[in-house]
């Protein structure tokens, strides 16, 4: 059987992490292809149901990328994201998902290298966790 390749959905803020991903691209910072970006205007826009939807559709991990606290393009949307993620982790655990499948990271527009490193790290961690319970059912 081929090595497990996790699929990660990333909801990324247009002003920071999405731009950081662009910068990682222009700087040709190679990273694993397992991540699919969904561009949002702010991490505070990420409705918990988007995260749940991604998990239910078989994503092995979800990343939310926002601006550093204090740097939010919309004043404090990132802080709202932080609170939601705290609650989401609680819910995920109850539904049998390891809470480490959901990551919230602050990645500034200038941090292309941080973006690439985060993806590498996350893919490795999720690989270690193995396929999500939904993914296992889908494959079976």
């Amino acid at each position, binding site marked *: 059987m081929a090595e497990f390749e996790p699929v990660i959905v990333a909801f990324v803020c247009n002003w920071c992490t999405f731009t950081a991903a662009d910068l990682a691209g222009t700087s040709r910072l190679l990273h694993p292809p397992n991540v699919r970006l*969904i561009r949002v205007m702010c991490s505070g826009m990420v409705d918990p149901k988007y995260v749940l939807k991604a998990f239910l559709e078989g994503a092995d991990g979800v990343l939310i990328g926002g601006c550093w606290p204090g740097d939010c393009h*919309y004043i404090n949307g990132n802080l709202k994201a932080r609170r939601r993620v705290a609650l989401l982790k609680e819910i995920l655990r109850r539904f049998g998902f390891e809470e480490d499948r959901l990551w919230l990271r602050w990645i500034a527009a200038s941090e292309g290298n941080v973006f690439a490193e985060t993806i590498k790290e996350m893919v490795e961690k999720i690989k270690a966790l193995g396929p999500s319970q939904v993914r296992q059912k889908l494959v079976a």
Partner: protein
Amino acid sequence: MGERIGVYICHCGTNIAGKVRVSEVRDYVATLKDVVVARDYLFMCSDPGQELIEKDIPEHRLTRVVVASCSPRMHEITFRGAVKRGGLNPFRSFHMVCIREHCSWVTQDEDEATAKAKDLIRAAVNRVRFHKPLETVEYPVNPNVLIVGGGIAGMQAALDVAKAGYKAYLVERQPTIGGHMLQFDKTFPTLDCASCIGTPKMVSVAQSPNIELLTYSEVEEVSGFIGNYRVRVRKKARYVKPECTGCGECSNVCPIARPNEWDERLGQRKAIYRSFPQAVPVTFVIEKKDRGPCVQACPAGTNVQGYVALIGQGKNQEALRLIMEKLPLPGTLGRICPAPCEKVCRRGDLDEPLAIRELKRYAADQVDWENLPVPAIEPKKQRVAIVGSGPAGLSAAYFLALEGYRVTIFEALPVAGGMLRVGIPDYRLPPEVLEREIGYLRRLGVEIKLDSPIGAGHTLDDLFEEGYQAVYLATGAHRSAKLGIPGEETTGVIPATSFLKEVNLGSRPQIGPEVVVIGGGNVAVDAARSAMRLGASSVSILYRRTRAEMPAYPEEIEAAIEEGVRLEFLVAPVEVIAQDGKVKGLRCVRMELGEPDATGRRRPVPIPGSEFQVKADTVISAIGQVPDTRFLEGIKGLQVSGRGTVVVDPVTYETTKKGVFAGGDLVTGPATAVEAVAAGREAAISIHRYLRGLDLREGRPSKPSGQNWSEVSPEIPRRPRAKAITLPPDKRKDFSEVNLGLPREDASAEAQRCVSCGVCSECMECVSVCKAKAIDHKMEDEVVELEVGSIIVATGYDLMDPTPMTQFGYGKYPNVFTSLEFERLNNATGPTGGKILMRDQNGAFTRPPESVAILHCIGSRDVNYHEYCSRVCCMYALKFAHLIKDKLGHETQVYNFYIDLRCFGKGYEEFLKRVQDEGVMMIRGKAARVTDEALDDSEKGKLIVVAEDTLLGKLLRVPVDMVILCAAMEKRKDAEQVARTFGISIGRDGFFLEEHPKLEPVSTATSGVFIAGACQGPKDIPDTVAQAKAAASEALALSSYGRVSVSPTIAEIDPYICVGCQVCRGLCAYSAIEFDETRNVSVVNEAVCKGCGSCAAHCPSGAAKVKHFTDKQLFAEIDGLLERLRFGEAA
């Protein structure tokens, strides 16, 4: 109706196609539901590429379009235009996928990249079918432009904006505009003088009616969006008003010297300064930090740093004037103050605290009190009575007299001064000193009535009847506390206060040969030392704790021991032993220290069975004093506490009786003289306000605070604290003064040890010499709000500090300079007036060098520091070489140690040729190190540059007199913070990142924010000016077009779903959601909403959504991305 979707995949040359198998992706996409056209093209963004889309729309009756190419941040707008031209709504019918930055450029494997591209496009096709039509909104553009940074880039941009007829705000952090360019002497390769071409720009900026200059100011916050920015700017307090004519008299008299930043700290400037004579604006500025810890610690609030600075300059009378603004008895306090200021003195971090008390005394003893000028006082009619002439009473009298009130002090004793006079022995405070200072009060108009007790015969109420309109009670604490042991009433047991009073009044009380003093405070020590002087053969002090807990001043205890007083610790008296009605001895008990009590000192506990006897002919009890309030008996409305003190308001010092104020020991119980003086001043302020009918509380209490102090440089040479001259112990037989003060030659040197914590000392010398009355020490920071349409950031660079590269000896050898320091040595306004001179070990400039080495690439092109090339060093190094030859003569040897010479600009190569022809030595090889370790006589006293000449393949040792390090240009230290404020990205080199390295050289990640000059990367003056003009042109394009399109992707709330819970309103950071009471729903204010989606993500009923980011659209995108998992690769 079925959707008809067209998908367009860009090769981007080989950028995408080199990794993603485009044709395979195209064929795959063609199989997706509703996709009727799938094409790939070499450059989709090109004209033919866009035309492809425009033509297909009508031809294939497309309803939606997906473009897969670069990042939408790059070309989303381009393709929206194409879709619009094809006849479709650019939001409803278009979605863009990034398969370059997020896919082909970052993926190693071709298969993986191709698979990822398929996933991304499938998601987009899924999503686009749910898009809704939206129209972009246009907003007007505020034509004003903010320019941040007043260097050559900022000045040029401001001038260009102003020339176009728009308003430019130029914000500069420094007190002057000009920037680094104005620090330079000449500019390469034309050798025009930087001042000659720079100062006219500065003047033009200042004179332009369209430019508003905000120097010494910093941008704190930026909000809004392109065309409509609101900017908050803090104008730091300059303490000098624009009326300043720039005459510089203030700087001449300022006592505080600081390193001059403009001269790269090679020289010094004053606390009130101007960067250089041609500064714009010409207005001086005062560097002021929080008041020093000494000032904050002084109960009386004396401006310690100020008077110390003046004493340092020998201005003793001015120092005294400053002291006496807060403290009327300087010579007295200069002798007996506990000096809390010295305990917090930050010089102590370095070596020892300043001898502040001795300095105060020194100043007071230097002036001629008889002829000390009396300030002009405007007399007032009201009369104030003061009861008691101790420090509190005298202080209140002094400040009231200065206000012009007619003050009478009623003193019960035959002498004035209270405890100062009768409590402190003459050998510590000679009566002449007190008398001369009280004499000055008399000259101010204060009347002192001696032998005039207030009490039964002459009551407090009588004073009001006699015409006094306010009374200040300050009778002190003169009653000795009782020992509370049997036999206390025996003859020979004397309370210390009575004993000291008798001594001080000149009578010589009878004491036996064996004297025992009980207590551990200053009074006990005073009594003991006085007893010694009266001829006692043995004097001992019994104290129930240990020496560490003794409240007496350490120097007093020391002096007592020197004079033969014995100290017995951990001993308490139990009973006085009498014989024939006279004291014979004391029965005592040994103590040990137990748990700490309320004062934090460990409580002494008797050791059972440890009793013993001490022989004594006289016992002096000095265990504390209490106020005597018997004189207030029968006075109505005046409250006295259970502790026997008068009750007052802690801020205003009002008693419970109208018009009566109180302070000093009478209120606090025994405390220090300086606290009493402080209380007297506060009472004077209250009485003044009371008599004028003003609010007694307004602005009180006011104490300076804060800890933003100047740094104490560890490089300051250590110097011990000056010591006062004292009478040798064998000469201390009478009551003449023991401490003789600081010797004249030590006093100003001691004052100069001050580290000037507050920088400006507020000595007010500048105020007294400023004819324009431009100085305002009370000035405060001002915050202004600006409204602008665009922002140009031109914040420049920092020169790298080469200290960490120890091999070059910077900071170790005085004649290793940085390039910027060398510019200042060359500059006519610099520390040497433009002469190239060497420094001696103390930093003083001496003689011109005979040989100079210029070391290129220090910190640039160095993987350990900065990989990049600083671009300007080769050229200015050549300029330096020329200037050295030019100024010092051809015989001066100049060596350039270079890696490569980069002379790429117009006239640059020609300049190199010229400098080479002048005989400058060019050595190809980076210097390895600089050392002063000579190997032979020719190297003695020289700096030896060790390098490999890579052309000869030989190791060289070149002895020179001076070394110049061409240090790297690097990003400003606070570049990250500035980047955050303005929403600019930062590149890997730390400099601000332009939007595109070739095509958008001045735009940034935030629309309407542009960058120019060295903040974007190292560059020379011509490039900086060119970039500044480019940035100005971008800003002006916005100003002149006057409109800007803003994305319509804002929130909306469906009124049919909204239940009116209003949770969204609390979440909205912009207060953009209003509540419609009649319909009971929340409503988005479209003009205010920014589209962040905080409301949408939280709305419990799902009524709030952000246009273009709806649940349906996002769900479809997620489905598309993950479809492969559900249906396998074939999907």
